[in-house]
């Protein structure tokens, strides 16, 4: 019996991994094939490590330095521990695929080419921020890069992603929408409306759940009565797969399977990436409601440390190479911080501009 049936107690149409391994208290799909050639495997691992490390370093600076220095006046919401999900998935997307990342998916922006300095300027409310000071933290997008900005009520993005997918199909493009959300978003009506519409219309969307176990202070057990977000997919006739969200290569490979299904015109596909939020909801939240044992357990599954270990044991990289990459990342972020700090604040005379076209 596949794990989905064990979880929900009744059969449904779903594509689920048959081979599973136990990670933490969850059952997850085992990491499957990475590219076969040794050189390709190593190159992919290097790329994944670079973007995960860049996201980690950026967010460490934001949360632990710039915020504490008072240089970030608003909220700080980071994806520490969740870097594998936006990295593994976004690296599978084509430039024409439209991304809808959440605030814990910075790597998607970095992979799409949003400069690190502009992300930091965004956090700092500077004119070179992606929204020029109009909005905060990861609330940003750029249609030229096919990346759409979230609103704070995150589930609202789900129907919007369905609409982008509808347009891609309408225009005869072979591209898809790729939409991230947390497990908390799946409690909102917009999420269900968007899932349903996308499935009824067989729209090309890959749904990616960052299930980090907590929505602000609310644990999974109080968020939903089902054991997995993936269990919700079959209710909409959407195939769902549970993925080890702390294994970047597993996420990358699962996204490949999802894209293959979606690009073939079969409709949406849901990936539930199990992970853990290794921080509070935001920088002002000490997360005292999270049992310390959970942090201990999940710190052993850190996606960056796991990939580094795999790279050295597989012979994809020497430790020195990895150390050199991490040093280069720190230098890149130093330069990004300098760029952001040098950027001026926006001119208050521009405050009323741009509410409407031509204004």
């Amino acid at each position: 019996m596949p794990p989905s049936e064990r979880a929900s107690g009744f059969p449904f149409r779903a594509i689920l991994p048959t081979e599973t391994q136990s990670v933490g208290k969850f059952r997850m799909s085992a990491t499957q094939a990475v590219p076969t050639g040794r050189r390709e495997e190593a190159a992919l691992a290097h790329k994944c490590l670079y973007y995960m490390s860049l996201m980690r370093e950026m967010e460490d600076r934001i949360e632990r330095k710039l915020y504490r220095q008072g240089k970030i006046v608003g909220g700080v919401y980071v994806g520490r521990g969740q870097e594998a999900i936006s990295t593994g998935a976004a690296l599978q997307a084509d430039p024409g695929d439209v991304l809808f990342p959440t605030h814990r998916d910075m790597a998607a922006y970095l992979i799409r080419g949003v400069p690190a300095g502009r992300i930091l300027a965004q956090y700092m409310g500077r004119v070179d921020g992606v929204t020029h000071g109009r909005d905060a933290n990861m609330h940003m997008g750029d249609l030229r890069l096919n990346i759409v900005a979230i609103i704070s009520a995150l589930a609202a993005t789900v129907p919007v992603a369905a609409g982008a997918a509808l347009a891609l199909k309408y225009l005869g493009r072979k591209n898809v929408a790729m939409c991230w959300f947390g497990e908390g978003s799946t409690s909102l009506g917009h999420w269900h409306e968007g899932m349903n519409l996308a499935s009824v219309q067989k729209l090309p969307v890959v749904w990616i759940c960052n299930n980090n176990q907590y929505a602000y202070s609310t644990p999974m057990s109080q968020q939903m009565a089902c054991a997995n977000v993936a269990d919700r997919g079959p209710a909409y006739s959407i195939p769902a797969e549970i993925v080890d969200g702390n294994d970047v290569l597993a996420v990358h490979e699962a996204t490949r399977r999802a894209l293959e299904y979606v690009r073939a015109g079969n409709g949406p596909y849901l990936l539930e990436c199990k992970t853990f939020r290794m921080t509070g909801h935001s920088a002002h939240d000490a997360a005292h409601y999270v049992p310390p044992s959970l942090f201990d357990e999940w710190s052993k599954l850190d996606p960056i440390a796991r990939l580094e270990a795999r790279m050295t044991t597989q012979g994809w990289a020497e430790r020195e190479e990895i150390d050199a990459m991490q040093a280069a990342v720190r230098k890149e972020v130093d330069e990004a911080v300098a760029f952001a700090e040098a950027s001026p604040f926006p001119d208050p005379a521009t405050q009323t501009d741009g509410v409407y076209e031509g204004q």
Partner: protein
Amino acid sequence: MSTTYLEAIRQGLWEEMERDPNVFLIGEDIGVYGGAFKVTDGFYEHFGEKRVVDTPISEAAIVGAAIGASYMGLRPVAEMQFADFISCAFDQIVNFAAKSRYRWGAAVPIVVRAPSGGGIHGGPFHSQSPEMWFVRTPGLKVVAPATAYDAKGLIKSAIRDNDPVLFFEHKGLYRRIKEDLPAGEYTVPIGKAKVARHGKDLSIITYGAMLWTALDAAEQLEAEGISAEVVDLRTLLPLDRETVCASVKKTSKTLLLHEDTRTGGMAGELAASITESVFEYLDGPIVRVTAPDTPVPYSPPLEDAFLPNAAKVVEKARWLYRY
């Protein structure tokens, strides 16, 4: 041949869909069934299921999907079956669509059509005038045509506009009014009010179906020797304060009329704008005739008591004239 208000909207939609292949319709029961009010009757057969998308009962998803499609270059026209259901899509409209351009420069060229208004015994959930929920949301445009000519011209302008436009069409007017429309192509600009009747003693400023109530009242007042000017706002956001204030300067007395309820209604904003700009021209208090602050009741005597009518306008206008 005279054209009804409903047929005018239909023609506007049809012509824009013929003109631009990126215009498409999305909503509940709009395709095979032709829409609850039959505004889109025959569209599915002519334009096909790709361009006339029947959806589940999901107002948030309808508007959300319209937003997403507009980001990709399409020009969706979403239909709320009744304006009353637009509240289900509130977050998509006021937070996603309205703030998109200001926040990150992403245009949202969508139209949300919403059949609004009472007088058809629809009860509390099929009769509301919810326009003011949106008029106080920067980033949206809100139009509310009163005539067949304006309905056609404004739906076409709304579709071509590069900002989100809410189109409140008064369902009580659908088959009640008709007029001869120009044979050729025309549009009506968003953001421009119109003097619907010229007068010198007082100004009645209104919009939507209440235009016809105002014109009825003006006829009756004329017989009594009171010359009323009637201004039809046509667009509620952005508001054409210039045309309103020009009329007030001319007549010096102002009666504000709307079918929407009183507190927080358009009349309040108009009164504030008038006192700010042309206070010294006023020769009397600004007077309001509106629905009371209640839900819209179902039973005919109750609904009649709720809705403003010509008699209520005439009574207030007489008082104001003598002031």
